[in-house]
């Protein structure tokens, strides 16, 4: 399926993204990254560095805005990591430095049983979640008319890795699947609460990372443990939801496409053609420019080729496959928008 420029009036980034998430016609393919476009170069440019930019709303705002002001993307994503709510839940976080992402110390689990799972009273007022809400509110006020503000709320599977530890959590799925389901059910509330708060703050859409990746678990696992819950999120969180799962996922894309989520942010381990073929028009795909080998290590020509592969396969929203490496050259990121615009111009001439 080759996506043609639709005869629709010119749109701004926000209109373009929201239309593409609904599966409606767009003036051109939106460019976005629903995970993170923070890089060291961008940090230097606006004086908002890691780790502070993950914890200080003003710096988070400044760094996030560069996705639009410097790169020309159609989305702004202020949550650069996946640990904001895990910090609020009590996980020990290694905040790291300017040139590295913060990570939960997953080898220091805080929970072992379903009854251990407690939603803290300060989930939404904890400094590491509140800064997200404050940054979204400020971005909405400053850029909300022109560009889509995308928030991020972690799914229960990923929260499970952080709070139970990866190995105990995965072993639980075999040893006691019912217990696993009870844990996921309890953690679901965290996903919903933080998601609703971000909508209230001004988010137009939400990324919902839930790393049930083919690198760790089978496609059947997704169907058994997550498909129904992800379907429930669509009812419980009233905005377009973008599911993000890294790695090889084509074996579960059919299940994902049935959840009712607006979009699936997919990894370059799945080709655009095979992915579009599986999901068809049931869900909008977002992706899938390779990060470590292309955006980080190659040049704009290589980026251009991958963007074209996605456009020609009919991927409706184009962008990096995941949070871009912090040392990614800005020129490579700018090339995504440039190529998308050029391609649509060529299509309209043809």
């Amino acid at each position: 399926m080759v996506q043609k420029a639709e005869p629709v009036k010119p749109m701004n980034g926000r209109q373009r993204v929201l239309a593409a998430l609904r599966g409606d016609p767009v003036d051109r393919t939106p460019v976005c990254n629903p995970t993170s476009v923070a890089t060291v170069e961008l940090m230097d440019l606006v004086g908002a560095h890691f780790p502070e930019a993950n914890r200080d709303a003003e710096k988070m705002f400044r760094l996030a805005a560069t996705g639009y002001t410097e790169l020309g993307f159609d989305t702004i994503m202020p949550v650069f990591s996946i640990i904001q709510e895990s910090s609020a839940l009590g996980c020990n976080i290694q905040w790291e430095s300017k040139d590295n992402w913060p990570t939960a110390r997953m080898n220091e689990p805080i929970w072992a049983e379903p009854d251990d799972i407690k939603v803290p009273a300060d989930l939404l007022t904890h400094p590491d979640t509140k800064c997200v809400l404050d940054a979204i509110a400020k971005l909405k006020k400053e850029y909300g008319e022109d560009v889509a503000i995308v928030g991020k709320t972690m799914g229960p599977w990923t929260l499970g890795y952080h709070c139970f530890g990866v190995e105990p959590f995965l072993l639980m799925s075999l040893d006691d699947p019912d217990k696993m389901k009870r844990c996921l059910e309890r953690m679901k509330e965290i996903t919903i609460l933080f998601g609703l708060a971000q909508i209230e703050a001004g988010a137009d859409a939400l990324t919902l990372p839930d790393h049930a990746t083919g690198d760790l678990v089978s496609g059947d696992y997704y169907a058994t443990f997550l498909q129904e819950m992800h379907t429930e999120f669509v009812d419980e969180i009233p905005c377009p939801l973008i599911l993000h799962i890294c790695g090889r996922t084509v074996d579960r894309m059919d299940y994902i496409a049935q959840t009712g989520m607006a979009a699936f942010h997919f990894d370059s381990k799945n080709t655009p053609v095979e992915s579009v073929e599986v999901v068809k028009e049931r869900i909008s795909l977002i992706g899938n420019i390779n990060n470590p080998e292309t955006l980080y290590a190659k040049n704009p020509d290589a980026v251009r080729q991958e963007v074209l592969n996605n456009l020609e396969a009919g991927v409706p929203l184009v962008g990096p496959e995941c949070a871009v490496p912090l040392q990614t050259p800005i020129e490579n990121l700018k090339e995504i928008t440039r190529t998308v615009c050029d391609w649509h111009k060529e299509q309209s001439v043809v």
Partner: protein
Amino acid sequence: MAKLADIENEFIRQEIEEYIERPDERGHLIALYSKISPEMQTLAAGVIDGQHEAVDAGTQAALEDGVEALQIMDDGLIAGMAIVGIKFRENFIFVPEVLSCARAMKAGMKHIEPILSASGIEPVGKIIMGTVKGDMHDIGKNLCIMMLRGSGFEVIDLGVDTSPDDFIDAVEEHQANIVGMSALLTTTMPNMGRTIEAFIDADLRDDVKFMVGGAPVTPEFAEDMDADSYGDNAVECVEVAKRMIEEFEAEQA
């Protein structure tokens, strides 16, 4: 030539029939298992099926029956992990199942290791493993360690967020000559190169071979960093380690 029917344990026969597709691997496993006693086949089946309590009890019982510790490890535990590794590589099973099998193997090894250690039996090789500085992710490294131990290697696990100095100290303390480094983040994978540089600065580079891996790591990146080898997955990690041992032996010959 041994045939599948020569293997007494029905579960093992089914596993080989259903999951081992490559003719060379199938032939090797049939030859291996046809020589293994029914008791050890049962133990191997327990490992493949992730039955840690059964493997724990089976290992104890075999020792009490006078079976040599080394034979239990080779014919029961390692033989079982050989099938697990192939099933994992071919995506018949995923990480939860491998964790379960490794737990079963560990339940047997806890009885075996002290005996082997006391009798001075050398492991296949000794490897230092760690996730590099700044990286908290350990599932990939841990899978490699499980597969390495499941193949008879002694592995010293340095955990996550391992500094170059920690790698150097461990090599010196344990007299190991293979170092495995893992990274999941693009931001931390350059620390593999920095670790290798630290070994050069410490004048230890020639004594050690480095193998690297992790989701964002590529063979090209490994070469740029001057690593000796790259492994794409936990099963390949074992193959790489075995090759390194052979190279060391050839160098010494």
